C-alpha cells in the first residue's frame, strides 16, 4: 500500500508555512527533516508530566523518566536490528563519530587497559575513509590520525562520484584498522556497497564504522545483517528532535572501549585520584541525558514503522528517480551521482550551468522552495568533481509529486533569469 501523503502531511505543522507568498516546498530534509506532531507531543508530554533526571532518583517522576528513557532505547534497538545495550545515546552523529575517535585515542594512550588493546593505534596503522564523506566522518579521523601517528587513507571516487572499488581493494589491507564510510552519500544520493566493503575490512580484521545518517531516514536498516561494528545516526534527520543521535556498537566492542566523555552517571566509584567506569551503554552517557529527545526519537521511529519502512523506501526511491529524471531533462542541468534508473535515495545534487548554487538557492527560495546550496560539508568530494559548490534537493515522507514538479519548474527557469 503506497503512503497516503496527504494524511502524512497533516501531521507536520511546519509544512503549513508560507514562504515569500508561496506554500513552503521543503526540499532540505537531508539537512534536517521536519517533525510530526507525535514527536513534538511525545517530548512535551514527557516534560509536562514525567520530567526528572534519570537513573539517579528514587522518586516516582525519576522512575517514570528512567522507564521512558530505557524503553526508548529498546525502541531504537528494535528499529535498527540491535540489542538495547548496543545503543548509546549521543548528541548527534557528529558526537557519535567523535566518541569513537576519542575513545580509540584514549585506548592508544593506554586507557582502558588490556581489553582496550584492540583499539590502540600508532604509526603504521591505517584508517580508511572515502572521498565522499561528510566532514563529520572525515575530520574526526584526521584528528585521530594526528593524535596517534596513524595514517589516514582515502578511497577515491570516479568522475561520476562512484566509489572506486578497485581502489578500495588496494587501499584496504593488513594495516587497515578502521574503515569508516557513509551508507548513503549526502551529496550524491548513491547507496554505497556495504557488503563488499565490510567483506574487504573483515579480511583484515579492521573495524567497520557506518555513517547511517542519510540511510536511516530512507531505508530499512538491519545493522546485524549489515554486519558492521559501529553505526551512527542523527535523530533530527529522521523526523526526530534536534540534539539526539545514536551510536550503535557491537556489545563486546563497546564494553572494551575506554570512556570518552566523563562525569556523572557513568561510574561505579570515584576517588579523588581516579574513577571506575560502568559497562556500556552507561559508560558513554556522562551527565544528564537528553531524555525528552530520546523519547521524541522513539516516537519518530514509531511513526516511521507505522508507515512501514518498506513503503517509505519505495516512495523515497520513486522521489529520487523523479528528481534525477526531471533534472536531467532540463537543458544546462548536470545531476551529480547515479544516472536515471540507477538506485538512489530521494536526494539529488546538481549544477546549473553558469549559475552559482547560491543564486540557484535564492531563486528557488523566492518561489518558497527550500534547497541546500554550498559544499554540503563534503568539500573533498566537490573538489574531486571539480566543483566549488552544488545545489541539493532532498525529500522525505511528506514530499509530494506536486512539490517535485514545482521544483523542476523553478529550476527550468533559472538560467534565463540569470542570462546564463
Amino acid at each position, binding site marked *: 500500500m503506497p503512503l497516503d501523503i496527504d494524511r502524512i502531511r497533516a501531521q507536520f505543522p511546519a509544512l503549513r508555512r508560507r514562504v515569500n507568498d508561496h506554500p513552503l516546498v521543503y526540499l532540505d530534509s537531508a539537512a534536517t527533516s521536519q517533525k510530526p506532531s507525535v514527536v513534538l507531543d511525545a517530548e512535551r508530554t514527557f516534560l509536562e508530566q514525567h520530567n526528572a533526571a534519570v537513573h539517579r532518583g*528514587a522518586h516516582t517522576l525519576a*522512575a517514570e523518566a528512567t522507564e521512558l528513557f530505557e524503553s526508548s532505547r529498546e525502541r531504537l534497538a528494535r528499529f535498527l536490528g540491535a540489542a538495547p545495550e548496543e545503543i548509546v545515546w549521543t548528541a548527534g552523529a557528529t558526537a557519535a563519530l567523535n566518541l569513537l575517535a576519542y575513545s580509540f585515542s584514549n585506548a592508544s594512550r593506554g586507557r582502558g587497559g588490556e581489553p582496550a588493546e584492540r583499539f590502540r593505534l600508532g604509526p603504521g596503522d591505517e584508517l580508511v575513509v572515502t572521498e565522499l564523506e561528510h566532514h563529520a566522518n572525515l575530520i574526526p579521523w584526521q584528528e585521530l590520525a594526528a593524535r596517534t601517528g596513524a595514517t589516514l587513507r582515502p578511497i577515491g571516487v570516479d568522475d561520476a562520484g562512484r566509489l572506486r572499488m578497485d581502489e578500495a581493494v588496494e587501499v584496504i589491507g593488513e594495516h587497515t584498522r578502521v574503515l569508516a564510510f557513509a551508507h548513503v552519500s549526502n551529496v550524491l544520493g548513491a547507496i554505497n556497497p556495504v557488503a563488499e566493503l565490510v567483506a574487504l575490512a573483515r579480511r583484515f580484521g579492521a573495524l567497520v564504522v557506518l555513517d547511517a545518517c542519510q540511510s536511516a531516514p530512507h531505508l530499512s536498516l538491519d545493522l546485524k545483517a549489515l554486519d558492521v561494528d559501529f553505526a551512527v545516526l542523527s535523530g533530527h534527520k529522521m523526523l526526530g528532535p534536534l540534539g539526539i543521535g545514536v551510536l550503535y556498537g557491537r556489545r563486546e566492542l563497546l564494553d572494551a572501549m575506554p570512556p570518552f566523555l566523563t562525569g556523572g552517571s557513568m561510574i561505579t566509584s570515584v576517588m579523588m585520584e581516579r574513577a571506575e567506569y560502568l559497562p556500556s551503554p*552507561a559508560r558513554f552517557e556522562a551527565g544528564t541525558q537528553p531524555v525528552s529527545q530520546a523519547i521524541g526519537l522513539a516516537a519518530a521511529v514509531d511513526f516511521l514503522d507505522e508507515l512501514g519502512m518498506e513503503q517509505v523506501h519505495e516512495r523515497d526511491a520513486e522521489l529520487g528517480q523523479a528528481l534525477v529524471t526531471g533534472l536531467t531533462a532540463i537543458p544546462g542541468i548536470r545531476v551529480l551521482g547515479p544516472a536515471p534508473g540507477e538506485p538512489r535515495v530521494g536526494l539529488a545534487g546538481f549544477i546549473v550551468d553558469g549559475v552559482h548554487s547560491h543564486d540557484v538557492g535564492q531563486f528557488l527560495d523566492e518561489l518558497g522552495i527550500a534547497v541546500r546550496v554550498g559544499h554540503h560539508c563534503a568539500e573533498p568530494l566537490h573538489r574531486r568533481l571539480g566543483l566549488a559548490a552544488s545545489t541539493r534537493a532532498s525529500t522525505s515522507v511528506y514530499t509530494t509529486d506536486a512539490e517535485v514538479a514545482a521544483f523542476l519548474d523553478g529550476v527550468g527557469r533559472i538560467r534565463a533569469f540569470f542570462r546564463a
Partner: protein
Amino acid sequence: MSRQDLRNLYQDVLVDHSHERHGYGLLEDPTAESHGINRSCGDEITLHIRAGDGVIESVGWTGHGCAISQASASMLSDIVAGLTRDECTRCLDRFRSMLQSRGKDDGDEELLGDAVALSGVSLYPPRINCAMLAWTALEDGLTRIDA
C-alpha cells in the same frame, strides 16, 4: 496487593530484619567471597559463604545499604544456611520471580521464609535491585564453589 500503603513495602518483619541484620559480619574461613554493588545508589555488600559436602553451612556479610537491602541480606542468611546448592538455586529463582512479578506473586513462604515480606518490593521497580543485592552476590559466590 497494591501500593496503597507504604507498609506493604516496608512490612514490619522487613524493618525488624533491617535492624537485626542476621548474619552480619564476615566469616573466618569462607569457601567463597563475593562482592555486590548497586549501581544506581552505590550500596555495597561483601558476602562470605562457607560450604562443605555440597551444603551451604553458613553465610556472613557486611556492607551498607537501605532497609530493603539490609533486610534482604539478613533474611537470606537465615534461609540458605543448611541448604544444598541446588536448593539454594531454587530459592534464588523463586525469590527473583517474586520480585519481578509486579505484585502477582506473594512468594513461597515454605521456601523463602521471612523473605516473602519482600514481595511488596515488586511494586517498586527501582527498588528491586536493593532487594536483589545480597542474592546476586550469593549467586556469584555459588559459581565459585565447586561441587
